[in-house]
């Protein structure tokens, strides 16, 4: 909604300050909170009968409170509960997304280490941990191993020629010419999904320390 009156501008600048204070939060949580407070202010203005009066709006914003206080309440460290039981989020778990992506190349051990870090960390929700582990197991190494080899071998058999019968010209059976291309397309798609999974972990990492 474009701010049209001085009162609208007051509200917009208040919400901007709130957004700045909520900077450390993951994007979706921050947006949700700012939206909730914006709705609250709108409701207060509607109920006041003087929605565009700067003095009224100033009083409303004072009742809503200092953006710093709202941010402090949001960022208050909570004792570990439920799915986020145990495991302080220290610097170590920042490596988890990268280990999951590339650690598989170290005989799979790097990925396992990343998985352990991820599972023990309180910086991600269960849902996000599941995404990070299932897409894909052993990361790029796993993908290349499971899909890259068959794709490569399909390519070699399709180009292989078999000699048929004595004396006759060797006949090349161009069987399944499309297979290697299809295999590579699937491989590329899966790699993209893996990249998206890593990006998701990086984006949703929640730091609880201030």
């Amino acid at each position: 909604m474009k701010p049209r009156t001085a009162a609208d501008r007051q509200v917009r600048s208040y919400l901007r300050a709130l957004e700045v204070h909520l900077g450390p939060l993951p994007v979706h949580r921050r947006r949700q909170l700012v939206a909730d407070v914006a709705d609250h202010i709108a409701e207060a203005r509607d109920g006041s009968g003087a929605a565009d009066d700067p003095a009224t709006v100033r009083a409303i914003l004072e009742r809503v409170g200092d953006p710093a206080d709202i941010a402090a309440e949001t960022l208050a460290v909570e004792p570990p509960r439920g799915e986020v039981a145990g495991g302080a989020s220290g610097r170590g778990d920042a490596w988890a997304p990268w280990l999951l992506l590339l650690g598989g190349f170290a005989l799979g051990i790097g990925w396992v280490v990343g998985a352990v870090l991820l599972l023990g960390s309180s910086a991600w929700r269960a849902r996000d941990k599941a995404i990070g582990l299932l897409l894909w197991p052993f990361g790029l190494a796993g993908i290349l191993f499971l899909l890259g080899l068959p794709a490569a071998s399909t390519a070699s058999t399709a180009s292989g020629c078999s000699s048929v019968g004595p004396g006759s010209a060797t006949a090349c059976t161009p069987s399944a010419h499309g297979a290697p291309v299809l295999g590579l397309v699937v491989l590329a798609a899966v790699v993209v999904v893996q990249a998206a999974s890593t990006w998701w972990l990086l984006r949703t990492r929640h730091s609880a320390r201030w």
Partner: protein
Amino acid sequence: MVAGDEGVWLAQLRRGAAEHCVLAVLRHHDSYGFELARTLADAGGLVAGEGTIYPLLARLRRRGLVDTTWRESVEGPPRKYYRLTAAGEAALSAFSVEWRRFRDAVDDVLDEGGQQ
């Protein structure tokens, strides 16, 4: 008495009590953010500012103590209504017992101190 320390304990106490007060309101009837904020602010000193109800509600929801639904409203845009879950009911009951015990204990000690 150091002013800073005084503020900290009250903030902590407020946070714990305010959450359960919200649950207590929801035990009676479903409600939405604006109404809950006003109720708690009017009760006196339970929230630092009406806006702080929103992170509090988000926290209750993440912990599965409340649920939300959108309801159409005659006056304007749809509103997000909060409702107590079974887990929320259990948490509220446990809090009621603990709170009364705690409140009585503190009162007793404060009164004893006064008599001596």
